[in-house]
């Protein structure tokens, strides 16, 4: 059976860019899903994301976006919104963003039918791990959108009686960190 992939995308080392992985770890720690729903911290895969789309019928991505809205805004983008962006000429392998990834997956016959990008507008992309207050406050609604999409896709979820360790290792204490 084809699966549903909930993916957190972004760099955990660069402030609000880590919102995707952060949300993915929290979802994994707090919720259980019906069979065939997978939660992954995908990092910043660029075009390598294509490799994760084989056998995926629906893709739900949480990522930081640069859409000139207020920090912490949560905006939903569907497959057609993403595909209509004309990507710039890329200079390095990070640049092939979601648009090109979906297009290439389409060529390979691997593109998911359903795509939802839950975009959280970032505030700071500095050189330290951890989210700004605005983005931290938006994580709950981003997760709520993930759960709503899971229901829309005809799958189910439940909150774990005992949450597991979210494993947010990148914000762990460092005595000399600035």
């Amino acid at each position, binding site marked *: 059976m084809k699966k549903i992939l909930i993916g957190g995308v972004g*760099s955990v080392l660069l402030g609000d860019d880590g919102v995707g992985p952060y949300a993915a770890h929290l979802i994994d720690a707090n919720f259980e899903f019906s069979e065939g729903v997978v939660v992954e911290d995908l990092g910043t895969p660029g075009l390598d994301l294509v490799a994760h789309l084989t056998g995926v019928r629906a893709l739900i991505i949480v990522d930081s976006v640069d859409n000139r809205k207020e920090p912490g805004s949560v905006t939903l983008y569907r497959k057609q919104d993403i595909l209509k*962006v004309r990507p*710039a000429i890329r*200079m*390095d392998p*990070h640049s092939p963003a*979601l648009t090109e990834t979906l*297009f290439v997956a389409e060529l390979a016959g691997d593109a998911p039918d359903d795509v939802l990008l839950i975009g959280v507008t970032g505030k700071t992309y500095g*050189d330290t791990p951890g989210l700004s207050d605005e983005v931290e406050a938006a994580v709950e609604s981003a997760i709520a959108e993930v759960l709503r999409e899971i229901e829309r896709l005809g799958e189910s979820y439940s909150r774990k009686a005992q949450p597991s360790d979210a494993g947010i290792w990148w914000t762990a204490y460092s005595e000399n960190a600035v």
Partner: protein
Amino acid sequence: MTKRITIDPITRIEGHLRVDIEVENGSVSNAWASCTMWRGIEKILQGRDPREAWLFTQRFCGVCTTVHAMASVRAVEDALKLEIPLNAQLIRNLILIAHALHDHIVHFYHLSALDWVDVMQIPKADVNKTTALADSLSNWAGNSKNAFRQAKDKVLAVAASGQLGIFTNGYWGHPQMRLSPEVNLLAFAHYVQALDIQRKANMIVGMLGGKTPHIQNLTVGGVANAINLDSQATMNMDRLVEIKKLFDEVMNFVHNVYVPDVCAIAGMYPDWFSIGGGVKSYLAVPDLPLDTKSQAYDLPGGYLFDGNLGGVKTFKTAADDAFRKGVTEDVTHAWYEGSKPLHPWQGETVPQFTDWEADKKYSWVKAPRFQGKPMQVGPLAQVLIGYASGHELTRKWASAALAKVSAVAGVKATPDMLHSTLGRHAARAIRCAMLAELAGKHWQMLVENIGKGDVATHNAPQFPAGEISGVGTHEAPRGTLSHWVVVANGKIKNYQGVVPSTWNASPRDNNGKHGPYEASVMHSPIHDPQQPLEVIRTIHSFDPCMACACHTFDPEGKKLATVKVL
């Protein structure tokens, strides 16, 4: 009349590579390469436990996560002079090989082939002629008439849907696009097939590393894989056989599709063997250690200056003294404080941002130098150093590739032609063919060693009081990667990563010497300043990756080149 062209596809937030060139009379007269994003990752590591540094360094870059994890544990092990069990060396080697195979295939087919291949020509292609051409190149099973027809239909369908514009990295219709419709179709069909092959190479990384991206099986002192040939829950014979099958499938593609494709396309653009050379001093470190003390290696390393292959010097080990002592980083033209080149163990990372200033500071990338000189790193350096030092496997695949290029181009291809844009593509294919062959050898060694009853995978690290320092290297897909760590009383005191793209994307140094990207585009022809395809081709041939690992999605889209008349 001089025109200044800025090639900067990226916003402030994404912050990657920017290239500025000045064009005079159809040729590049000056060049600057800069990274537009600050990397403060080294600071994040200060004060942390060296055993967990690899978790953080693995996030330096989202594309080559594995290589930074590996260099990090090797740096700490070097500081501790820790031996690594043979199983752990071999499992690490297999992960590194699988990662590199995946990375090289993606680079050629999905990130740079469309600089040379014009998809718009495909509707004109004759499927029968394409099939005959493919048959003359190799006996790959995917070269069927049916496969080429399907590929052509795919392009027709996408064109009909109006979505072809998505491949804007192809300057289609540019007069420098010179392949026949049939070769374009052949390359595009392999582009689609390569998607499946790269995924299989990546699966090997996941099977050995526990997960991909972000492998989980590393540990300072070895790997965390449990080995028990009779247990379903650990690394057992079934799993090893599955891994071998995947390696064989990838090797078949590399030897029978990737290498022939690169040679055929290169042979049709022979003028590009004399464009894009630049810095002809090369550096590579040995890799794929064969013993627990990391004294013998399957891949050679060393250095040579100014294209003098006869003067090659080899490194005995991956942390050779000449390498250890020879590396410095200069910040004269980088946005950091500092007045003189520093060795990485003394390295500082204190930002001092000015604007982009052509004569002063203009990049977040430092300028690494070896024995004071800019060095080119990457597959071309690996192959030239191997070739020059008489390394048998390098010579075998380099000779085979040069013979194939000669046959297509109708002129004799020589190793000297490799100092060029196409030389980098050819060298990457040569290196990939070597790695594919070595996968089988290292797999066999692992199986035999486990068969002897050795299941050890880990030696526990002990951190002494006081200060120790180490360097961990890996000859990564993009070239020489080194992590430099200073540990004081069990905590990280200093950490510097000198990554392949810093060598290649380096700005000018204190002597005003260009880095390799900059030097490679100097004097390049530019047919149309509005469409600087020639610069894109040469920069892409390095497989650039700024290791900045930030890629926020921009729903508005971007434009590429801005041209300003000076």
